[in-house]
């Protein structure tokens, strides 16, 4: 895939997202609250995502990005608030619920069972079985080989526990698991944290490709440039709240950086504060 072609697909996808904007958003999280023993990890957050759109979630450590996404993926229950998928209120109380709505997650920790192989991890909880209900390891391995060939052609170790794979290969398995089951909504929590430059480029290509296919993506990353390159809109979180959600065209990385650090919208930041950040 060349850079030009991926850039074009990205543009068309943005156009598609603009058209879809008349319809209810693919995901809408309204007034979500999560607290852990008095600490408001997520405090009255409202956020939305359209089909074919990438929404970047940025913020410092403990800003609540991962917790917010864990609510959507069913890993952490929300104390209050509402989740709507295509305008319809839904209840997501465990990871299985999320998956039935086509929400797939690449966790920062990867959430792989280290002692079993790539195919077993890819199909974990959704194993292919024969007619009598026995595991069809052959079919699962074949499907895994197929998808891994697409995502990471160097991946060869299909028979070993994922513990003995490199960080990049483990990440590939986690990504493969998220994209294999026809996700409509993809949550990527630090998808490139464990990766080298070449693999990071692969993941970026993948994000653009999935976006072009009309999948809505929440992208969490520490790397502001990563997020800025890939996202259509960026939501900045600070101490459990969303400071602002901005369209990329209308904000600079400096604006976003300022929001991450100060927890204030750009126009609220004084020039002295700004100078301090940039120094």
């Amino acid at each position, binding site marked *: 895939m060349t850079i030009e072609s991926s850039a074009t697909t990205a543009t068309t996808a943005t156009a598609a997202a603009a058209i879809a904007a008349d319809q209810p958003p693919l995901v809408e999280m309204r007034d979500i609250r999560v607290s852990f023993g008095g600490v408001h990890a997520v405090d009255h957050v409202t956020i939305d995502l359209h089909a074919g759109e990438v929404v970047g979630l940025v913020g410092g450590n403990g800003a609540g990005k991962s917790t917010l996404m864990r609510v959507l993926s069913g890993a952490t229950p929300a104390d209050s608030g509402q989740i709507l998928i295509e305008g319809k209120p839904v209840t997501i109380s465990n990871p299985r619920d999320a998956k039935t709505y086509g929400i797939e997650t690449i966790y920062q920790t990867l959430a792989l069972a280290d002692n079993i192989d790539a195919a077993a991890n890819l199909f*974990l909880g959704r*194993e292919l079985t024969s007619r009598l*209900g026995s595991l069809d390891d052959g079919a699962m391995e074949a499907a895994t080989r197929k998808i891994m060939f697409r995502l990471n052609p160097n991946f060869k170790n299909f028979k070993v526990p994922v513990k003995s794979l490199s960080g990049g290969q483990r990440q590939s398995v986690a990504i493969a698991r998220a994209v294999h089951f026809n996700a409509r909504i993809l949550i990527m929590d630090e998808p490139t944290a464990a990766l080298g430059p070449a693999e990071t480029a692969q993941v970026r290509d993948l994000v653009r490709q999935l976006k072009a296919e009309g999948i809505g993506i929440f992208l969490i990353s520490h790397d502001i440039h990563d997020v800025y390159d890939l996202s259509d809109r960026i939501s900045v979180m600070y101490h459990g709240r969303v400071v602002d959600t901005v369209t990329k065209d209308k904000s600079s990385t400096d604006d976003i950086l300022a929001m991450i650090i100060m927890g204030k919208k750009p126009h609220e930041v004084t020039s002295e504060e700004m100078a301090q950040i940039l120094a």
Partner: protein
Amino acid sequence: MTQASPGDGLTAERPRRSIRSLLQSTEVDTRLLGMILALAIIWVGFNIMSGGLFLTSRNLWNLSVQSSSIAIMATGMVLIIVSRNIDLSVGSLLGFLGYTMAMVQVVWFPTNPLTWLIALVVGVFLGAIIGGFQGFIIAYGKVPAFIVTLGGFLVWRGLLFEYALGQTLAPMDPTFQLLGGGPTGSLGESYSWIVGILACLGIIYSLISGRRRRRGYGFPLRPRWAEVTIGVLGCGAALGAVWVANNYFWPVELAKSYAQTHNIVEPPGGLQIPTGIAFPVLIVLVVGLVMSFIATRRRFGRYVFAIGGNPEAAELGGINTRRTIVSTYVLMGILCSISAAISTARLNAGVTSLGVQNELDVIAAAVIGGTSFSGGIGTVPGAILGAVVMQSLRSGMVLLRVDSPVQDIVVGCVLVAAVGLDTFLRRGNKR
């Protein structure tokens, strides 16, 4: 996206020493192979030290029967330890269930012709319920498994004494007694051969169908010589075991009375009736096959291993981890009841001391068989082999007239050494 990423090149297959790569191409479980080798060394060692008493049909036949109760429970303990739990109650539970089955036959339904069946059904159900109860407290109540089963360890043994004030209950129903093995509780010559031949057919079928399946998906195949070697060794082992069992003959007195009741003229030197595979051993084989199938070919087994590998990942993968944990304990309870039936039938009595310290033997068997206490690793055949290793050590030392306390010391040292060696080797493999 076809660009090669440098990170992957580092973990690509490095050239290894030829023996290891040869072994790898056969895809044989090297750990299991190592255990079989260790067992062979133990057997040959005891045979030399005892002046040829160990490797006799008689001793090996007894060894197989004596291992069976622990082996059956060890197959369940594997799943429990793999899922990062423990069951300390199996010895007491075995005693309790065995005593209950004895109660059915001696006190509650002594005259019913189907009393053996009632005893078994009651035992299996009670085992499943008690196991499930403990599992429920562990999985849903979030009480540590160690504590719950430690409580069970005390409670079930205590209940057993409450039942009949600790009296010994005997005798068992004649049909029930067959479960315990012994000359009459065995398959006899021709059925044993049939079992052996069926085992061979099963081995050959699984090799061929496995190869066909791999070819169908275009996966790399095992080298042909490896398939043939595995087939020949497997069939050889199966038929060899049958041959050994068939070379253990009925005791002289029993054979004499059998000859008299069946009007057979005894040949010079007495009637030689091959015993064949004992029923408890047959049960071990069936349980081993079923448990292996559950552990490796069913979703449930996959989930148990996933939970052991990473409980959070299993949960995030949408697995109902609590129900899975409860199921492991239900299985364990059922296996305890099977072992309890065998032990009670073998003793031909319900006694209060049945199964004392068995929990330790079962856990030791699973661990010697390669089950890792940190979870996620273990095999059913390994656990059965572990039980045989333990019993081999004990009965070998009995042959050598080693005192019981010294036996315990040796077994204890072997347990620690085996796990230590295993940990050491595993760490070496990682590098």
